[in-house]
Every structure is written in C-alpha cells, then in structure tokens.
C-alpha cells in the first residue's frame, strides 16, 4: 500500500477540490431538501410530523405503491425486450447483430416524455393500433391506460441499460466455462440455466437496478401521460403548484432518495462477491452457434417485433414531424416538411444550448471521473473511497430532488459580475447535468484505469516523469477509449434530460432541447415542430454518439498491436 507522502500533495489537492465540488453541488442541496422534510411547516422546529402526514395520506401511500409497481414492472417488461436481443446477438451467428445492438440503444437518446407523446399516438386508446384493431377485429388493447402507459413507455426507453450490461456480461463469459458444462453432460436448456444465466447475472442485475432507479425517479413520462399518483410527479406537483415552502414535496423527495439508495444497496448486496472476472487467458467469449433455417426465421421474427416495438416512438415521432394533421386516424392526413423549416429557423438556440450544456457536462464528467478514478484506485489518500461513494451516490438522487435542492440552496447566492442568483444562471443546468451523469462517466473511467497496468506508470516514473506528467502522458492516453465511452454516455443521456432541467431553466434562451420540445408540445400548432425538433435531437445525438464510437474504435485498433505484444511479453 502506498502511503501519503510528499509526492502526493498533488493528488491530495485534486481530491480536496473534488470533495468540495461534490459537497457544494450534491451533498448540501440534498441535505437541505432532507432538512426541510424534517421541519415543522408552521414552527420550523424539527419533527417527524411530515412523514406521519405522508403515510397517513392515502394519496401518498397510493403514489408510493404505484411508483414501486411501475418501476418493478418496467424492469420486467424491459427484461422481456432486452433478453432475447442480448441472447440472440451474443450466442448465435446472426447477421446484423451489430445493427441490432446499435438500434437497441437508440431509445436512450430520445427524451422519454417525447416517446410518451409518440406512443400515445400509436398505442393509445384511439391510437393507430387500437383504431385498426377496433375497425377490423372489434376489440382494443389498453396499452396506454393508466399505469400501463408509464410502464410501457419507460421500459421501451430504459431497456437498453439491461441490453448493454447483459450483452457485455454474456460476451465476457469464457467460452470454456460453457464447454466444460457441455463436456460434463449439460445440454442447451440446463447449460443456460445453470451456467450462462448465473454468470451473466451480475450484468443483468446492474442493468435492471439502473432501470428500476431511473423509472422510480422519472418525472416527464408520468406527467405527459397525466399520471399524477406517483411519487416523482407528486413531488413536482407539490413544489410547483403549492410552492417551494410545502414540506410534502420534500418528504416525497426524501422518500425517493431513500428508496433509490435502498435499491442500489440491494443490488450491491446481490452482487457482492459475484463480480466474476470470467475473462481468462484463451477465453474467447461465448460460443456462437449457427441457426437452422426455421430457428433463424423465428429469431428474426422475435428480433424484428421487439425492434419495431422499441423503435415505435421514433417511427411515430417521424410520422408526426412530417404529418399535417393527425387526429383520430391511423396515420396523419397528409405530409409536409414545413415543421422542419419552422424549427430550423426558430429553434436553433435549443440545439446549440443542448450541445453546449451536454458537451460541457460530459467534459466535466470525464475530467472529474478520471481524477476520482485515479485518486481512488491509485493513491493511498485517506477517505478516498468516500469520494467514489459520493460520486456514485448521485445516481440515486432523482433529478427532481436535485432541482429542488438547487433552487433552495442557490437562490440566495448571487453570482458575481452577472448579478443573478446562481440558481437561475445557465451554468447551474450544466452543473446539475454533470452531477447527474457523473456516475456513468466515473464507472467508464474506473474500468479504463483498471486496464492500465501500474507497471506502465512505474516505468514512466522510473524514467523521470513526475506524478502529474505520468498521468498526463501515460495514464490518460491509455485510458482514452474508456474516457470517450464515458463522455458519449454522459453526453447522450444529458442531452435528453428533463427532470432536473425543467426545474432550473429560468429563461427560454437558456433552454435545452428537451425543454424546447416540451414547450412545443404545449400548443396545437406546436406538435409537428416539436416532433421535428425531437427527430433533429435524435439525429444530432445519434451522429455525435456514432462519431465518438468511431474515434474510440480507431484508437483501439491503433493500440491493439501494442497491447498484444505487451500481452505476449507477460
């Protein structure tokens, strides 16, 4: 173990700065929210009365149950989407596996509430599907009725979290693990149940718990679907319609945070000691099997059905963006490009804001993520683990709670020179996004750092490079792939965030895309342009994501021979 020495003052200062940043922008705002929840609204004294009120009110109890129900069922439905896609593409020789994996991630880069609007048009009581069903078969299916709609929209939006994690886990299983079981007599079904599934479990649980968390604290979707009796909408409604002084909003926030942390903790317990490093020397991923003709047809049918389902928001949004009037009919009455013309001429500010905010936030995330990863894994600073927990803890803080906390904390704080409260300066949006996405970037950076051997660093130091120069010249370049991956994840998901931004946007010129779309969707003539803006958003984020993937891949292939020779040397 490295001890704190004089050569560690640099990392120490960096760690201190990071801790300060997290304290100011994560701990204090959340603590303020928690504090108010325990304050008597009339006297200001500390009390538990607000929580008693919460659990005595049947509406809140119902909201609580509904939030749980929706989050749990969303995990189930999302798993139903993700499992076949992950399984087929990692285990069978399947043409278009890469395309399927890419298309499967697209739902993430659309704000979920936009998906909600689009899905109502397709699957609603009088949407395309039900109108057709009713006309030809005489019955309808309540896809979008009540909580069903929330579950449907959320699982379509968030299932990629399971797909990505599960595919990675499946790909990481050493082929010989599977062969050993076959060799000992386990055939397909039992092989999957006894070996493949347990080994992929950590990946699945990681994805599933993320879905649970995100659904549990999502605000936009239930609001757009007019579902009020869930926790996040209740918190938002209480704060915006009753006021920042109403304690119930804070109580709900505390309950949201508590249960998010509990969900995280549960998944942590479930995974403890099971983070199998199954990649071993000579292991080459899962065995891929060729499919017989009818099997192939069946798999394609399932894959295409799922892709159609999960891409239905994009399909509907595209129709909406080109449609003139779409009312009580399976398809729009006519098509036009006018909405795009309108949007491009009036709304470029949303696009530039989004690129600026999400870009800055993702930039902050990877810089901080790299720094935290380094401090935690490569130094012996006392309390360094706390930094990791703190940054990861942000994943359990719902956007609404962070938004409320910022309003509460930074309204009294004026930014020098621009003479505005910090809470209404656009930079606060960037900070909120950065804090919210930091956990993603941090995990990517940690993974990247763990692949860089300490020996490579020692070699640099041995040749006279100082700590900071070693980090800059050896560690960071070797981490590039992971850092870019972290940047992409943060950027893409920050671009579509609404929960925190809706509370923090104080003027239209500061608004990002998601907010702009939300606003467009508030008027009769705005649906088409709103949809057009949504499609543009998906395209821009999609292209940005694709480009950064290309950069990563180029870097990786560039580095591949070097790594190989290093591996041979071992």
């Amino acid at each position, binding site marked *: 173990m490295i001890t704190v020495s004089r050569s560690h003052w640099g990392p120490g200062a960096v760690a201190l700065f990071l801790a300060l940043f997290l304290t100011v922008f994560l701990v204090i705002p959340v603590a303020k929210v928690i504090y108010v929840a325990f304050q008597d609204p009339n006297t200001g004294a500390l009390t538990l009365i607000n929580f008693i009120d919460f659990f005595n009110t049947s509406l809140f109890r119902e909201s609580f149950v509904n939030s749980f129900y929706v989050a749990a069922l969303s995990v189930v439905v999302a798993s139903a989407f993700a499992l076949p896609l992950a399984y087929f593409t990692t285990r069978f020789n399947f043409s278009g596996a890469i395309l399927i994996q890419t298309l499967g991630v697209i739902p993430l880069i659309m704000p979920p509430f936009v998906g909600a609007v689009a899905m109502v048009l397709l699957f609603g009581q009088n949407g395309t599907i039900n109108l057709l069903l009713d006309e030809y078969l005489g019955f309808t299916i309540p896809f979008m009725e009540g909580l069903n709609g929330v579950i449907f929209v959320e699982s379509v939006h968030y299932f990629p979290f399971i797909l990505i994690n599960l595919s990675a886990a499946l790909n990481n299983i050493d082929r010989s693990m599977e062969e050993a079981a076959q060799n000992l007599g386990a055939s397909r079904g039992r092989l999957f149940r006894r070996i493949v599934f347990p080994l992929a479990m950590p990946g699945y649980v990681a994805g599933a718990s993320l879905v649970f968390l995100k659904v549990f604290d999502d605000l936009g979707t239930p609001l757009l679907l007019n579902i009020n009796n869930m926790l996040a909408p209740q918190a938002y409604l209480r704060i915006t319609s009753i006021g920042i002084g109403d304690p119930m909003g804070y109580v709900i926030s505390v309950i949201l945070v508590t249960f998010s942390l509990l969900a995280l903790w549960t998944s942590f317990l479930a995974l403890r000691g099971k983070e199998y490093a199954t990649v*071993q020397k000579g292991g080459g991923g899962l065995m891929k099997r060729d499919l017989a003709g009818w099997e192939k047809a069946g798999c394609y049918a399932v894959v295409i059905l799922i892709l159609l389902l999960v891409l239905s928001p994009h399909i509907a949004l595209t129709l909406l963006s080109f449609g003139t009037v779409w009312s009580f009919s399976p398809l729009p009455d006519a098509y036009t490009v006018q909405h795009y013309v309108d949007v491009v001429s009036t709304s470029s500010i949303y696009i530039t804001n989004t690129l600026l905010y999400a870009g800055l936030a993702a930039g902050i995330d990877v810089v901080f993520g790299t720094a935290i990863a380094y401090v935690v894994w490569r130094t012996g600073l006392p309390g360094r683990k706390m930094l990791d927990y703190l940054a990861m803890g942000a994943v359990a803080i719902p956007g609404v709670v962070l938004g409320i906390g910022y309003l509460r904390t930074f309204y009294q704080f004026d930014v020098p020179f621009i003479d505005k409260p910090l809470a209404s300066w656009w930079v606060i949006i960037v900070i909120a996004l950065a804090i919210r996405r930091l956990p993603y970037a941090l995990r990517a950076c940690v993974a990247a750092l763990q692949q860089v051997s300490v020996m490579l660093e020692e070699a640099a130091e041995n040749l006279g490079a100082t700590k900071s120069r070693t980090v800059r010249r050896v560690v960071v370049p070797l981490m590039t792939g992971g850092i870019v991956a972290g940047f992409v994840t943060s950027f893409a998901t920050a671009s579509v965030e609404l929960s925190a931004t809706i509370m923090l946007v104080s003027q239209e010129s500061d608004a990002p895309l998601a907010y702009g779309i939300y606003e467009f969707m508030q008027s009769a003539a705005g649906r088409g342009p709103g949809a057009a803006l949504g499609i543009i958003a998906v395209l821009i984020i999609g292209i940005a994501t694709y480009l950064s993937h290309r950069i990563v891949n180029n870097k990786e292939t560039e580095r591949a021979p070097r790594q190989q020779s290093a591996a041979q040397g071992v």
Partner: protein
Amino acid sequence: MSLNQPSGGGVAVTVENLSLSFGKTEVLKGVNLEIRPGELFTFLGPSGSGKSTLLRSIAGFGPQPGGRILIDGEDIAGLAPWDRNVGMVFQSYALWPHMTVRKNVAFGLEERKVPAREIRERVEAALDLVGLVAYGDRRPSQLSGGQQQRVALARTIVVEPRVLLLDEPLSNLDANLRVQMRREIHDLQRKLNLTTIFVTHDQEEANTISDRMAVLDQGVIQQTGAPLELYDNPANRFVASFLGTANMLEGRVERADGRPWFVADAGFRLPMADGFSPGGERVTAMARPQNLTIGAPGDATGDGRLEGQVEVLEFLGTIVRYAVKVGGTSLLVDETHRAGRPVFQLGDRVSLGVDAEDIRLLPA
C-alpha cells in the same frame, strides 16, 4: 467402475481422415490416428498446428469436422458434446466462479441424474483422490493455480468418462508446480488406466508423460510413436528440430572408397553407415549435438572428422555448447562438462568427430 479401481483397459480412440476448416483456412487436413486402450497419448505441436482443434473435435466442440471419430468402435462424430462422455480439462480450468469446489465437482453427476447420496460419496472420493477434501466449500477464486487444476481434474474424472482429454493443462502453472502436477496426472492416469489424450506444445512435458505421441504441424500428423523413437528417428526435419536441437546439413549421398558418403553443400563429406545407397536426390543429414565430439585439431574421435574454428561458446551447466564454423556452415557440438576439463575458447581451431551410425538421413 469406481475411482479407486483400475477400470480394466480403457477404450480405443480411432480418428479416421479427419479434416476441418475455419472459413477458408484448413486447420486439419485428413488426420488418421489409432490410440490404444489405456494409453496416455500426447498431441505435440507448436501453436496453430491444429492439436487443440483435434482435441476439441474429439470432445465435440467447434465446427463439425469431416471424417470419423471412433471411441470403442462407436462413431461419435455426430453426437452433441454432452452425449459423448469424454472428459475434458480445459487450459483455463473453466471452473465456474459461482459454484463452490464441491458444486463444481458434483455438476457432471447431477447432469447424469445420479442419486444425491451417491453424488456426495463420489464427489468426496474424487476430492480425496486429488487431495482437496478440506477445500470443498471454497470458491474457485480462493484456490491456488495448482489446486484449481486439481479441482478441474476431479470434476472431470468423477463422471468416469470413457476418455480423458487434457488441453494444455499445465501451461498456467509455474515451473516447479508443472513438474509436480505432471507426475500427479501421470500417476492418476496409471491408477485409473484411463485412455488419456494430452495436448501440449512442450516437448519435455510430452516426452516425460506420454506412452506415445503424435507430432502435429500445419494440420497434419508428422509422425506417431513412442517419445524415444521419435527423438532418435525423426521422420522429417520438422520432427527432428521440434523434438530437440539438431544439426542439419543439406547435400546428397554419393558412393566412394567402397562406402556411402554424405556430401554436404557446405563443402565437406561424412561417412555413412553401410546400407545407404546413393540415389542422387537431395537429402538432409541430421546429427544431434551430443553425438558430435570435439577435440584439439586432430584429437576428435569418430568415423568422420572435420576441422573448424570455435565461433560461439555457451556454458549451460551440464554441458558446454560450441558452434563451430566448418566450411560454409556452422555445427553445434555439446560436450559434457566436468570441473577441471579444459574449455575451448572463441577462435580456437578444433576438430570435430561423428560416428556414421549417429547420422540420420531425412527428406530434404
């Protein structure tokens, strides 16, 4: 069959005209093999020679090969891996991290629907056999490399497979442990009298452990036989050099002075044992370095004598290895080292000797 009693001979494994391609690359090109019951047979070859692919074909992994694989006379080529009852130990051991040692070992028996009580007994017996009874409740990650290797072995033999397949089982162990495990595997194999196929790229490992072995290169079996036989009488240049250091000279056989001579392209000739008749075609002469003698000019003993100059000198402990420049080539000579014996120095003029019977002729 029980683990503690020899199983009376094991079964024969026959491979007939086995060929296999990965895409356009031919990995096995018509392999024929006859492995006798109870034998410990080794596939030896460099990486990419097809030895692991051949083993995996026997276990039923990888693409479906052409040709036949017979175990005890039964063609298993079309069977799924789980229906073959051949036990395989993987290079990486492939112990399942989510199961304890005991669970790992019990797996195959559970798949075979063996009654629970019997499973318990047989698992304990297998663990006892590899000396790991005390470790049954550990997870694989809590074991050392050698212990993992033993668990992998126990897991495979507990199901009493017809054939035991070992895919480079020692490559992940350090040098000392490798020697020890090699003996253990050998003893175990003898005890169980189980037909065993062992894959390795290490000729020392192959020599020490095998009853017989097959040397593979580029998807073709180069030669099959007992280790000593292959070392002394390699069938071709590849086998000769893969099994040990060899001097190889190109040239042809001519008859002169009433006996056959090997006339090297390098510009000298060596006497050959009678029975070699000159065919005029180009051949390779092979002589192991330890079969050459070295001495001061004129001193070396042997049927053939050559004069040269010491070019390289390596002290290897038990031997001193010289590279001696002779004519247009360089020959390696090993001399057993004894304290006090003079060692030639770089640049020294020396004489080399070799007996006619130590020279082997190989195809060019």
